């Protein structure tokens, strides 16, 4: 370890310092929500600035090649910072009426972010695993954050038990890949696999088992079918801001892991894992959408829809493996677009649930368009973007993935067709919420709630991102193509 190493991991240090700062502030001035949030936002702002500064340096590695700083790292880190900042902003309106402390929430969330940031920069299997654990362990706690609520704890224990089960599976796979390739470094694994592909080394069954275990572990984290079972229960049970975070943060984090693992380490063998990804993508998006059609709890519906979105993103990965590097751009763009629109949708639900006891059943949304027109309009926008109606970011993200998949041809092109059909079917259940909002009478005549300035600020940001990235995707595409370029150059 030397001085330059510390500079390279500065974003990580800034993130952890932020988390600690929040704790300290809460100890010095207990119970001051505003101070906590200000600290968190300032800390995240500093983290973002540090990330950008460090990111402007030429790509480099640290800690003997285990930690890598490239365009992908910078892009994902900024995305994580944005996701966490928005989650923190949305939380107080939900947490305060339920007497849940904001400070611990923010701290745990920022710790989770540091895990995700570690994933995005790791080019070492062991570090990837550590980052993954650092990201999901706080997630278990957050899911059970409303500890006196039996749904919240039920979701948490399901998430935890299955999550650690899958972590063990992932680790088992890691042990074998490490033992049989002789290294945990992604680049070394890749070079061994190149030899395997060239038949200079045999493709031993042990290695195959190792990959199977790794794939299963990762598929669980992104909630791909049939490893998705935890998703609906954990999402429905968690406090709504946490659900928003869970549906976005760990998902994008796990996709970062996939990019580092499948594209960089397993890149030489993409022809071998392509069929697996195709099957996963097809079942994931179809099952997610079919079951979402029948849900009448909006949080649970969005949970199933998030499974479907996982499937769409996997199509991007399949397109990459099918020979179209643009598939990765599509995947990254989708991740970013999905983060903003889905967080926005959950923020609206959280805002509605400011009044304690309000459920996330469809009936809650009846007449929302009349009662709280702004929330209604924003929710409609987010749902339309999730459906993929232009000119929102969701449409553009789907378009890039579809076009890449179509160009890849073969079975991947079939995936593109399936994606189009699925997206059309998804309109049913997203639209049902809109129908409830605008065409049903309110269930109760309780007066509309006042929402905090923070909530509106966060919603404005999510809205702006959803619209701007749809109209001017160029804003993001430059960064994304650099990130994807960094990956494909390495892989």
């Amino acid at each position, binding site marked *: 370890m030397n001085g330059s190493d510390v500079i390279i991991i500065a974003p990580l240090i800034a993130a952890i310092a932020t988390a600690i700062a929040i704790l300290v502030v809460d100890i010095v001035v207990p119970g001051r929500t505003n101070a906590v949030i200000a600290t968190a936002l300032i800390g995240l702002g500093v983290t973002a600035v540090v990330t950008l500064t460090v990111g402007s340096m030429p790509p480099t590695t640290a800690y003997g090649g285990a930690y890598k700083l490239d365009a992908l790292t910078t892009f994902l880190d900024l995305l994580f910072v944005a996701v966490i900042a928005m989650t923190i902003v949305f939380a107080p309106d939900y947490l305060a009426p339920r007497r849940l402390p904001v400070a611990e929430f923010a701290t745990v969330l920022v710790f989770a972010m540091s895990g995700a940031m570690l994933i995005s920069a790791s080019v070492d299997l062991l570090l990837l695993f550590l980052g993954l654990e650092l990201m999901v362990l706080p997630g278990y706690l957050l899911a059970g954050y409303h500890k006196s609520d039996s749904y919240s704890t039920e979701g948490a*224990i399901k998430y935890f*038990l299955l999550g650690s089960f899958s972590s063990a599976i992932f680790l088992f796979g890691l042990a074998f890949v490490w033992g049989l390739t*002789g290294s945990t470094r992604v680049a070394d694994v890749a070079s061994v696999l190149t030899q395997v592909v060239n038949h200079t080394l045999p493709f031993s069954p042990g290695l195959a088992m190792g990959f199977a275990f790794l794939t299963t572990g990762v598929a669980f984290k992104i909630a791909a079918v049939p490893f998705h079972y935890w998703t609906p229960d954990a999402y429905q049970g968690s406090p709504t801001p946490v659900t928003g975070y869970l549906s976005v943060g760990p998902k994008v984090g796990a996709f970062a892991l996939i990019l580092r693992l499948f594209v960089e380490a397993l890149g030489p063998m993409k022809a071998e894992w392509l069929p697996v990804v195709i099957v996963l993508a097809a079942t994931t998006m179809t099952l997610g959408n079919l079951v979402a059609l029948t849900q009448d709890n909006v949080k649970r519906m969005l949970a199933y829809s998030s499974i479907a979105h996982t499937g769409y993103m996997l199509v991007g990965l399949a397109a990459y493996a099918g020979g179209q590097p643009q598939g990765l751009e599509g995947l990254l763009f989708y991740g970013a677009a999905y983060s903003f629109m889905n967080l926005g949708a959950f923020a609206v639900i959280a805002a509605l649930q400011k009044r304690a006891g309000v459920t996330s059943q469809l009936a809650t949304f009846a007449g929302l368009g009349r009662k709280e027109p702004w929330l209604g309009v924003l929710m409609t926008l987010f749902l339309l973007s999730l459906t993929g109606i232009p000119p929102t970011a969701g449409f553009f993200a789907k378009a890039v993935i579809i076009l890449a998949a179509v160009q890849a041809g073969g079975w991947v092109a079939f995936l593109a067709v399936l994606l189009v059909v699925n997206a059309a079917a998804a309109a049913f259940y997203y639209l049902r919420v809109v129908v409830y909002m605008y065409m049903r009478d309110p269930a109760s005549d309780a007066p509309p709630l006042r929402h905090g300035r923070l909530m509106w600020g966060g919603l404005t940001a999510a809205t702006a991102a959803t619209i701007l990235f749809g109209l001017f995707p160029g804003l993001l595409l430059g960064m994304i193509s650099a990130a994807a370029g960094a990956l494909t150059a390495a892989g």
Partner: protein
Amino acid sequence: MIRVIVGAILAPIFIVGLGLIGLAAGGSRSLDAYLVLSGILFAIGMFGFLARRNAISMLMSIELMLNAVNLAIVAFGSFIPKLGAGGSVIALLVMAVAAAEATVGLAIVIAIFRNRKTPLVDEYDAMRQ
């Protein structure tokens, strides 16, 4: 019932599969023995996770699976010379992670026990379908 059957099927599959792995690894004979043992341990852990209803037992099963992983890692480390140094480090990290996981897990188990007054996870099914 089906869980028990699947668990019972799983164990031999893993034993045979890992035997294959051992052969294919081509190392010394005793590495195979350790790997097979590790595979059996892992399968037992999975079986326990599937068959036990008590949350604490399931937690222990996960620990067993992680220990199986550690055994494999240490075996690789000591039998393949160039993996030696790394093996110990990875094993130590896995232990640390296992401890962290257990802490979080116990906290959650206590929280839900307070709400539901039962440690049996198959009674936690308020959310489904």
